């Protein structure tokens, strides 16, 4: 079954036609990447899927039913977004950020178990638990942002530029984490500007340019495509 199905999606910001008739799907358990340059509309697609930005046309289905119109209802359907630049609750502690991630889960024991799972993925968070999240390093903040999204036990995880501004070693940690949670059954939609690594770990990839898809195909194949390498992968 399609975890996500998007058909002829259009999004306008005032007079700007940011997403122009995009169609794609993500199957359950897949990692799919959307790659493209700055301003191509990648983040807009993500915010639309999360219910924050309203589309101006097209169909979006999540796990077989139409996308609800409010973000909190989309979350309740099992979709979580880790937005660009993380957007942590910087005045809150690490622990409070994680608690917020599990806001819809009423079973305290499940929340505690989920927190333990996050500590297994990112042991450093356990040490930082009582620290204000705004004081974490960039890499730690990204780990917390991913953990916060996982706390809600989503079925679909949307990651917008999860490696932006991170040191190479941390980038590798993040990529390995994505593979690991997919192995546990997660469906992942990944947006990246610097795309070689993203395409390599993806089952399928889409190339977005000025609001439209130029090309799609298996991730590793796209990563090796000379034309794409020249245009998007810096080499």
């Amino acid at each position, binding site marked *: 079954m399609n975890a996500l199905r998007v058909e002829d999606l259009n999004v306008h910001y005032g007079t700007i036609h940011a997403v122009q008739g995009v169609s794609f799907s993500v199957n359950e358990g897949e990692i799919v990447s959307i790659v493209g340059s700055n301003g191509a509309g990648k983040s807009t697609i993500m915010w639309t899927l*999360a219910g*924050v930005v309203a589309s101006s046309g097209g169909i979006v289905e999540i796990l077989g039913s139409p996308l609800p119109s*409010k*973000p*909190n209802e989309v*979350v*309740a359907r099992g979709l*979580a*977004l880790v*937005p660009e630049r993380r*957007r*942590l*609750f*910087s*005045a*809150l502690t690490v622990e*409070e*950020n994680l*608690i*917020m*991630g599990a*806001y*819809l889960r009423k079973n305290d024991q499940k929340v505690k178990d989920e927190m333990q799972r996050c500590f297994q993925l990112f042991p450093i968070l356990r040490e930082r638990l009582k620290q204000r999240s*705004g004081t974490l390093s960039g890499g730690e903040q990204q780990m917390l942002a991913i953990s*916060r999204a996982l706390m*809600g036990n989503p079925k679909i995880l949307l990651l917008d530029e999860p490696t932006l501004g991170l040191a190479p070693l941390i980038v590798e940690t993040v990529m390995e984490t994505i593979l690991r949670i997919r192995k546990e059954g997660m469906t992942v939609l990944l947006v990246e500007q610097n795309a070689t690594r993203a395409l390599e770990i993806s089952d399928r990839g889409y190339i977005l340019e000025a609001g439209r898809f130029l090309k799609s195909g298996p991730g590793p194949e796209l990563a090796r495509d000379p034309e794409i390498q020249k245009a998007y992968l810096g080499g």
Partner: protein
Amino acid sequence: MFLQTLITGLSIGGIYALMAVGYSLVFSVLNFSNFAHGAVIMLGAYVGLALATKLSLGFGLVLAGSIAGAGIIAVLNERLAYSSLRRRKAPSLYLMISAMGCAVFLENLVYATIGSRFYAFPEFFGRQVVTLGGSSISLLDVGAFLFALAAILGLHLFINRTRTGIAIRAGVSDMTMCSLMGVDLDRLIAIVFLLAGGFAGVAGVFLGVKYLVYPTMGWVTNKAYIAAVIGGLGSLPGALVGGLLLGIVETFVSTYVSSVLRDVFSFSMLIAFLIWRPNGLLGRDSEEKV
């Protein structure tokens, strides 16, 4: 004399703090000064007055009724006057103008229906005083101060310890992300207004019992605004400290300098803070609040 002045200052300061807390809560979540807060305080006082005079209820029930009444009025106020602006992501100036409109409307509604008469609450406590160190201290003043302190402490615990409280602080930090955690923002904001309104109800009853009930009594929230700025807009401990400080300063100026100069002093303090310390005593230096 000194002790008596101090206690009076603390009790007025406690009422300022109760009002400032409501201001600060709404400000920190929606980022605008809710000028209708004074009108909600006034209506809360009228609710309390009606319960006390028409139904002859005791002080506890009057207070509870006023908290509930003002809380509901504050939620309705948000639903009718702010929510549509909020959903359209209107600039906070629009919300502020809408709030001023509400204040004028509600005041005139009271003029048109209840009238401009000044009303007094029945004497709940008589004029009970205790004599301490040669000065007589009103029990009402001590009670008002202690109740304000307890209520604000309770709110502080709620904001910091409960799931809903954490969600309110998360919303202060980033509204959009808060909704992406599954929080229904309309519901969360309704809770914030219910809390702010509840505190307005307490302030309204205390003001009414200490002074009188009349349509423009809500303008005393100017002082709550000053208190909130002194303490740091958006900070709950700041609202408490700012309120108490302002109450004490005002009472001492009235007693030892001149009661005519009292408000000159208060507003000078506001201006001084806005120029030299716009984040207040306890406000954070960054843009983060609560």
